[in-house]
């Protein structure tokens, strides 16, 4: 079977590109690091790839607001290519700054006009924080999750967050209802048992503990925590006392994307 091609997008201030590329590599994909300039100039075409990953970092210094400038490049310079990419049934994942870009460009939660409906704003603690969090990835009491990226994950997973602007907010109540009704809430902050909990379990004060959402197709996924920072047991903060030394839970997310692309694209 042919390896799917992943475009790990980078630009000024991207800084999780290499470990994200490594995670996809481990998951069995062929990976290229591509600068936004190459896509805008037409030197590279997005259509060559099956998966687009927007990694973490501080694109353009997070000036104006986190991810805002790259989001505008998406909206005003790459809109057609991106929409086409999604229409072709391909996959997008945005991690941390990548999620901020997807939300601010309107690709998440997603609507026809690419109008922004959700945002990631300053943490309630008013500072950047790096800490590990538990995530509930089986949306409680609802129908089968639709996001292709989180299939087969255990009920509770453990990943690090590292951000200053990660508080998930929506434009109005209707958006939140739609997200929940459509089963677009993919991962939620929780305690170690999987129950909703306050700070520091919910590290930024996100509405309803939302840590990641997908679009209506389930193929475009954005999340604040960093799955690429937990693909190996050595990255777990308490691996020294762990009995079983398996791969980190983050790797499954990348494998899901790669497997989906292999089967369907």
């Amino acid at each position: 079977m042919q390896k799917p091609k992943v475009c790990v997008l980078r630009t000024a201030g991207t800084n999780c590109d290499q470990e994200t590329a490594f995670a996809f590599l481990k998951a069995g994909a062929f990976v290229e690091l591509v600068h936004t300039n190459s896509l805008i100039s037409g030197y590279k075409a997005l259509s060559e790839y099956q998966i687009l990953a927007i990694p973490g970092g501080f694109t353009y210094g997070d000036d104006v607001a986190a991810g805002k400038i790259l989001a505008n490049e998406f909206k005003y310079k790459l809109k057609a290519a991106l929409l086409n990419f999604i229409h072709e049934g391909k996959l997008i994942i945005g991690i941390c700054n990548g999620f901020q870009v997807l939300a601010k460009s309107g690709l998440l939660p997603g609507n026809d006009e690419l109008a922004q409906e959700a945002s990631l704003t300053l943490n309630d603690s008013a500072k950047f924080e790096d800490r590990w969090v538990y995530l509930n990835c089986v949306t409680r009491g609802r129908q089968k999750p639709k996001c292709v990226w989180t299939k087969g994950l255990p009920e509770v997973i453990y990943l690090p967050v590292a951000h200053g602007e990660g508080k998930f907010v929506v434009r109005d109540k209707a958006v939140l209802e739609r997200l929940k009704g459509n089963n677009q809430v993919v991962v939620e902050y929780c305690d170690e048992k999987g129950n909703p909990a306050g700070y520091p379990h919910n590290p930024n004060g996100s509405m309803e503990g939302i840590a990641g959402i997908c679009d209506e197709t389930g193929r475009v996924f954005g999340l604040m925590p960093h799955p690429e920072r937990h693909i190996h047991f050595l990255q777990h903060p308490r691996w020294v006392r762990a009995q079983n030394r398996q791969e980190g839970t983050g790797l499954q997310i990348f494998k899901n994307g790669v497997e989906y692309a292999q089967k369907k694209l």
Partner: protein
Amino acid sequence: KFDEKHNICFKVETHNHPSALEPFGGANTGVGGVIRDCLGTGLGAKPVCNTDIFCFAPFDYPMHKLPAGTLHPKRILKGVVSGVRDYGNKMGIPTINGAILFHEQFIGNPLVYCGTAGILPKEKSFKEPLKGDAIVLVGGATGRDGIHGATFSSGELTHKSETVSSGSVQIGNPIEEKKILDTIIKARDLNLYNAITDCGAGGLSSAVGEMGKDLGAKVELSKVPLKYKGLTYTEIWISESQERMVLSVPQDKLAALLEVFRSENVRATPIGEFTDTQKLQLYYKGNLVGNLDMHFLHEGWPRPEKKAVFSTPRHKESVPPRAEDLTPSLIRLLGHPDICSKEWVIRQYDHEVQGGSVLKPLCGVANDGPSDAAIIKPLLHSAKGIIVSNGINFRYGFIDPYWMAASCIDEALRQVVAVGASLKNAALLDNFCWGNPDKPDRLGGLVRAALGCYDAAKGYGVPFISGKDSLNNEYTIKNKSLAIPGTLLISAIAVMEDTSKAVSMYLKKPGNLLYIIGTTAEELGASHYYDLFGIIGNHVPKAYPKKARQVFDALSRVSSKHLIRSMHDCAEGGIAVALAEMAFAGGLGAEMFVEEVPVVQVRARAQKTQVQRDDFVLFSESNSRFIVEVERAHQKEFERYMRGVPFGLCGCVSEEAQLKIFGLDGKVCIAAGIAQLKEAWQKSLRW
């Protein structure tokens, strides 16, 4: 050397004066500068981690005592932490290690040490500019910021510095530097240049001057891109505007090189070329404005001779009152600003970016205990790791800078051992921050410390690979000059063959045995315990490198055999603080018997020498000591490996969440719940 294909480099810089005037900007550009040092090593190393160590005046310093022209230490602390966070996080370099210490004498001059380690392919480790190469300036535009930064940094500060020298503080832009990093590595791997140097202190003048040392260089200063009009050619030449690198580029590769930078929106401009005239020739719009002999430039400065005097101070010899119950002292020690949890700071730094984190700065069942040293894997596909640790304790210098230096080296090295590595592939850096070297008493202490470094490094058998100094850390208040305590930072870096053998510091399982390795002497001079009572004393901890090395090597051997469940070094606050930290980080209790702690006689004080008081044993800060947790099943094997090394089986891990220490008389001298201890440790800096 990291492995067959890669080398590593490590540098620690100081940015004290700028941080005193403008904490955010000073610390920000301090980090930026040391990252560029790394990028300018060989043909460019990729930075893989940062370490940041600060010294401030107490953060609860009374406002009304604040000398004119100084900022409040709390404001400096917050600004510095923000500056480091901003640059490190945005560059995507994990800040994995650090320390913060406090003393009133830092009121006029805070210390900010910034360090970066990097990795580069073996064949890219050396550079050589060639005749005819184009001089290419890469990165940000040049402005008036940071003019005379280097000279300002080398003078004393006064209440006027804020108005006179603010323009000397540089302005940082981490994203510009990130762009430079990305493109430089790309150009390096395409072999597009012969040499690279960063524009640091002195700006272009030192970068070009250094590179052209053996050749000669010709520069047209009007070609330098400017932030705004109106700079004189002198200003262009010495500006310390940040985020600039100088490359030496063969003419036939110039076009390809410029294209690499252009493709990612990085400014790159040829501004001259290297010649073979042995002269540094500067032009502005075609007119010769500077012409210097390279030899004069590099060798022309006569070697200064200065006078140094050192006399051992005699401090009043008093001891804290005897107490049956030492629990209150332990609680106070845990809350001591030097010892307390720095979680508020650490969490603001991204310490996991690049995905290589193996042992994080915070560890334990709740991820909040203090790790001894941090370990990262710079290559994601390899099990090899880099360890970074630091040793710093200016207090010992109040008694003797010689032993301060030896203790700092011991501390940095024992932290490497404590995380399970060996000293086989370890190296040291020194960073001296001192007062005015023209004053013989200040220089005397500095000389003592340097001698201590020399002897200790030889004794431990670990080489120094680099160093730095920052002098004139003095502040004039009412015509009286206040110097900082002479402060030495020792940073250690080591390569760990197999990071899956790492050892962490928190207790793992009830019933496991607790050993104390290394001997305890009555060395409480300048200890944190004495500090609680306002005593300095005279018996500063000494180091015995030969014996220490035996202890270190024995422990490295047992950790490589997986016989150690947890290990923590004893430093500030001694055995009691170390054990308390292990307990509350592991969420488990411990019992210990002071009787079993290996103690040593201090020869100088003949009769009364045997350590006899519980508090002396528990709070002494003697060097080369560890607390080690071992499974009962491994007791025999562990003790066999420890033969020839002083050790005592002193207690065990307990089910009950309590720390209990039994004194020499068999009675409990410390008893406290681990939650109470943790609270005391976290409270001080929970902002």
